[in-house]
């Protein structure tokens, strides 16, 4: 068996259509001026655009038809996330979709169908996962106490300020469980917004202490463990898809500048010192695209298997490093302009740093890939 393993890569007509529609939509609704207009707003996105996306069915695109979705699976979210990344469009789609996937995979299908249907209908949800900065943390200090009372603070909760629903990872007698918390259950002042390196994104710390949840708001058991495991992989995949789109438009921005800027009487794009790294970025974008659609091909509705896990981890390790490289070179190749806030290169380099730190950086995933591909140590 080769370490290269599965190289399946398919693309359905539905995906192709979605990619087309999503790309056109994002281009129209999210020109750079619109992206910049959101940088300092409280929530970082335009409600109207979000509602249009919901109307297009994207909030439920990956959810089963039984709960109001389109039944196209995670594979359909990948082209949409890529298109959003390309246009640097900020929306809660990824946060909401991941929360829904977690519920779906952790035993919520059936008992929580009404909640999934609400998400498909545009209710914004998010996952409250991290206690701290460590994506490899194996337990949480956030607990479920007697009487269903939660205790603890979650950090880096994406789109917390707009979420109506929080899926909170807690420990219940030493075992992981998920608590579904409605925003109105939170104490006043429970949400403390972060100042993020990427101004197109929003997250916050959320204090769940004192919130009481009923049995109907809880998921427990083996499905939770497997659901949370898969959440990490799907989070990695969707951020990789978004980063791939951003890297491609970052490359386009840089190339456009190299084609128009003159120095020493020549277009700077004619210098090989700039030309060859541009090709390196292109090749890295090519790899990223191949990995995200490979992972999309393998990530079905059921628990993710070994091949799908490898694919998601590779997609993340590749795509966010690609964007880091593309963003870094975009700043440098724009020269003095690149050092300014006005130049769009800053948007990409900021997105790059943020993306790399979501769902584990490249080293985090390569370390796990090494264990899967080269065997354990010791």
């Amino acid at each position, binding site marked *: 068996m080769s*370490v290269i393993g599965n190289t399946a890569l398919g693309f359905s007509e539905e995906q192709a259509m979605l990619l087309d529609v999503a790309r056109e939509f994002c281009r129209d609704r999210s020109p750079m001026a619109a992206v910049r207009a959101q940088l300092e707003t409280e929530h970082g996105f335009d409600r109207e655009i979000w509602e249009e996306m919901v109307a297009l069915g994207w909030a439920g695109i990956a959810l089963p038809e039984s709960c109001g979705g389109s039944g196209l699976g995670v594979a359909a979210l990948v082209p949409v996330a890529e298109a959003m990344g390309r246009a640097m469009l900020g929306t809660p789609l990824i946060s909401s979709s991941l929360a829904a996937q977690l519920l779906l995979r952790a035993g919520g299908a059936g008992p929580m169908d009404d909640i999934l249907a609400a998400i498909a209908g545009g209710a914004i949800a998010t996952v409250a996962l991290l206690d701290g900065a460590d994506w490899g943390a194996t337990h949480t200090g956030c607990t479920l106490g007697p009487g269903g009372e939660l205790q603890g603070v979650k950090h880096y909760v994406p789109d917390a300020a707009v979420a109506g629903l929080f899926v909170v990872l807690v420990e219940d007698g030493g075992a992981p469980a998920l608590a579904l918390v409605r925003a109105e259950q939170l104490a006043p002042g429970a949400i403390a917004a972060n100042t993020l390196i990427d101004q197109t994104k929003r997250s916050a710390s959320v204090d769940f202490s004192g919130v009481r949840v009923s049995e109907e708001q809880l998921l427990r058991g083996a499905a939770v463990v497997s659901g949370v495991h898969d959440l990490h992989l799907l989070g990695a995949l969707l951020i990789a898809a978004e980063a791939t789109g951003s890297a491609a438009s970052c490359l386009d921005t840089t190339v456009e500048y190299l*084609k128009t800027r003159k120095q020493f009487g020549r*277009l700077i794009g004619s210098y090989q010192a700039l*030309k060859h790294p541009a090709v390196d970025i*292109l090749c890295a974008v*090519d*790899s990223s695209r191949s990995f995200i659609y490979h992972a999309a091909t393998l990530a079905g509705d059921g628990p993710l298997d070994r091949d799908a896990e490898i694919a998601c981890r590779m997609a993340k390790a590749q795509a966010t490093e690609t964007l880091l490289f593309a963003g870094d070179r975009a700043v440098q190749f724009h020269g003095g302009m690149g050092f300014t806030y006005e130049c769009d290169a800053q948007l990409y380099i900021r997105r790059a740093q943020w993306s790399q730190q979501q769902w584990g950086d490249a080293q985090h995933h390569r370390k796990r890939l090494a264990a899967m591909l080269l065997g354990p140590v*010791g």
Partner: protein
Amino acid sequence: MSISDQELNEFRAQVSAWMRDNKPADPGFLLPQTFMEVGDERQLDFLREWQHKVWSAGYLGMAWPKAYGGGGQQAVFQAIADREMRRHAVPICFNVIGLGWAGPLILDIGSEEEKARYLKGILSAEDIWCQGFSEPDHGSDLGSAQTRAVRDGDEYVINGQKIWTTMGNFAKYMILLARTNPAAQRKYDGLSFFLAPMNVPGIEARPIRKITGEYGFTETFFTDARIPAGCLMGEEGQGWKIAMQTLQYERGAEAGAAGGLMMVRVTIDDMIEQLRDVSRDGAPVLHDPVMRDTLVKMIMEEKAVALGERRAHISALTSDYPGSLPLSGKLRSTEMSRRMRQFAINLQGAAGGLYVGDDAARQGGFWQRAYFNSFSATIGGGTSQVQANIVAEHVLGLPK
């Protein structure tokens, strides 16, 4: 005409059985991994016999017309045969310039007479072909080639020098790019393309010793060498166009090759398997966290190239940068191979300092030699730097 899966499966089984039964025993000397490593007569004779055998069995040139020694079948059969050759790790079909470049070129644009004269000998390995493109002062800059061809009655008189002629000392024919009109306004318009014999007076092929210490290429000198005027392919002045078309076959951008296993592909699996027992800090090298991280990066690189080959067939996923995957293919795969082989030496500890000829060298020094030989691919056929220029200019639209 569609072919049933059953038919394809039966064919696969048949080729597989043939390869298993006919795979030659280890000859006791190192066999070339690529056609650029045929350094002596022993290797030549061995490979010639093998290619002839594969062709006689009907597993080479399967999609070329029957009239010219081919099989007249659909290309899918050759693809299956190629896969089985790879799977059974049989020796290469070494007449690559003929099978892969000159052959498809002659099939596509050659005259009836050229097809009848040349194609069968390419397949049977009776006629070995070489390529006379590069010159000492014009490597990647092919358009500036200076070797002269002057028409004199029914002949052309050739003067000049070519270099990096793979198997130049063994070849019967050469695809030759030479300047017929030095006064042409555009340098490209002064070039012409010849299907030239090598066995005429005035052509001398001197073997070049490579960094590996072995042979495989020649410097080829032309001193008033007279070739028949009929060797001109197309018309005078079309040389550049024809040479560019030839490079399309070479880079795999244009189909038509006769097939056959053209090189032994060394994969990262081979490297991991052969070196996993090396020790580092008293533990297996594969337990070293830094080495593991580097290996995973390399696995990803190789996987990305494989996935790219899949994605290249999905038009909706290639519309952003059309041509990107095929045009960057050579650059990516050859650079990847070079780095992988270099790292394979790195993995060996002190033994990495040994070379072919030392009994203690791992795999007989295979990785050391393979690393050195890998430069033939990152330099030959347009260096990686020229490839990067091509991608930059043709895919990204950057200025020259």
